[in-house]
């Protein structure tokens, strides 16, 4: 990655491209997940497709994982370099006077999302891998809905997910529009982009939170 990290602008563009890629992924992920609330059969069908389609499994999934890794590794690299750029800190620093909280604390919202991703991976990805490749269970295109709903039975998991979605919203409130500026896009469309980014940053995490809460309060009765 050294080539990508040579100049400050290149680092920004890597951050922006990986971030935008994750934003796109988030939209796709949400589209599938919302069917678990409105159309469980569709949810099963789409989940099964995602889980067994070779293109998704062997091409898109590794790209996604690489995207996440590049993004958060670069996030930490930027944070470390930026801390070094001011060795002696101010005695009084009024950061709130000239920049919003979300823009100054991307590393905090990012770190919470990273912790969430660890749990999320354990909850669903590790489970899938175990089911498919370790236990070598047969394909079952109807299991996804029940497995998902069951996950949200415990209060603690539902609460952790919802907290993470709040932090995700904060991360995107700055990050989404910021990635355009990083790529040099600041023109007459910028007010529109900012508005769309703000709506997306709130709507998508809110949607995810609603899905988690919905499943928590609507358990499958056996």
């Amino acid at each position, binding site marked *: 990655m050294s080539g990508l990290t040579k*100049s*400050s*602008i*290149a*680092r*920004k*563009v890597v951050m922006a491209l990986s971030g935008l890629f994750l934003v796109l992924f988030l939209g796709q992920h949400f589209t599938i997940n919302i069917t678990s609330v409105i159309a469980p059969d569709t949810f099963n069908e789409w989940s099964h497709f995602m889980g067994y389609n070779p293109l998704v499994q062997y091409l898109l999934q590794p790209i996604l994982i690489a995207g996440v890794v590049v993004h958060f590794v670069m996030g930490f690299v*930027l944070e470390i*370099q*930026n801390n*070094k*750029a*001011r*060795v*002696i*800190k*101010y*005695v*009084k*620093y*009024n*950061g709130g*006077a*000239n*920049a*919003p909280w979300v*823009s*100054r604390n*991307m590393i905090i919202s990012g770190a919470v999302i990273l912790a969430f991703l660890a749990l999320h991976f354990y909850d669903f990805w590790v489970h899938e891998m175990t089911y498919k490749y370790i236990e070598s269970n047969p394909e079952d295109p109807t299991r996804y809905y029940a497995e998902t709903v069951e996950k949200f039975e415990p209060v603690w998991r539902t609460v952790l997910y919802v907290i993470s979605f709040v932090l995700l919203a904060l991360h995107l409130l*700055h990050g989404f529009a*910021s990635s355009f*500026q*990083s*790529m*040099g*896009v*600041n023109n007459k469309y910028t007010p529109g982009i900012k508005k769309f980014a703000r709506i997306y940053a709130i709507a998508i995490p809110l949607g995810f939170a609603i899905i988690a809460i919905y499943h928590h309060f609507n358990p499958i009765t056996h």
Partner: protein
Amino acid sequence: MKLNLKIWRQKDANTKGQIKEYPIDGIDGDMSFLEMMDVLNEDLIAKGEEPVEFDHDCREGICGSCSLQINGEPHGPDRMVTTCQLHMRKFKDNDTIVIEPFRAKAFPVIKDLIVDRTAFDRIQQAGGYISVNTSGHTVDANAIPINKEDADDSFYAAACIGCGACVAACKNASAMLFTSAKVSQYALLPQGRIEAVERVQNMVRQMDLEGFGNCTNTGACEVECPKGISLENIARMNREYLSAKVKG
């Protein structure tokens, strides 16, 4: 007006500094911030103490030499002004004012509130110029028509006085606003296009070498800039840089 000043004192670049308290009285709201500092220094000299060193020159907002981080903001709480144009009426009786040097690894403290901003000069020298034949065969600049919007944007970018408030305000001590103003000023004009590809790469390389941080688009620089330099300049520099890399 009575004030309690908390000022960073540092003997020289190699000595550790610290905040010292200076109560001061008889400050008028119509005084500029630097005049208030003058009053303090007169007092200190009368008492046989070392006056507080700070940078200043024009005292009318055009040279960019006055710096000062005042209550956590470069050039203080007012907008679109330098410290020399900041008036004491912005403060209230009995206020505590914390006064520090601009902080960045690339702006080391020389003494008290004075920092070394020659890093900016080196960025400028890396490409902030155009090569023109001045041997008597010069072409009138107005011989090349330039559209009004570009001329205006170039002029707005050229308004940067190199004060360093953008670096001081930025949580990352990034010099992107300064560098982008200098890049934009030329990028927008046909005279500047000739060296455009090398200019942006050389200036960004020098900026990184000086140890400034990476921009994370917080926008603090734009808010604190006394000359209203816009973030659009940073986006323009990013475009210039990316297209220069593509062109090689």
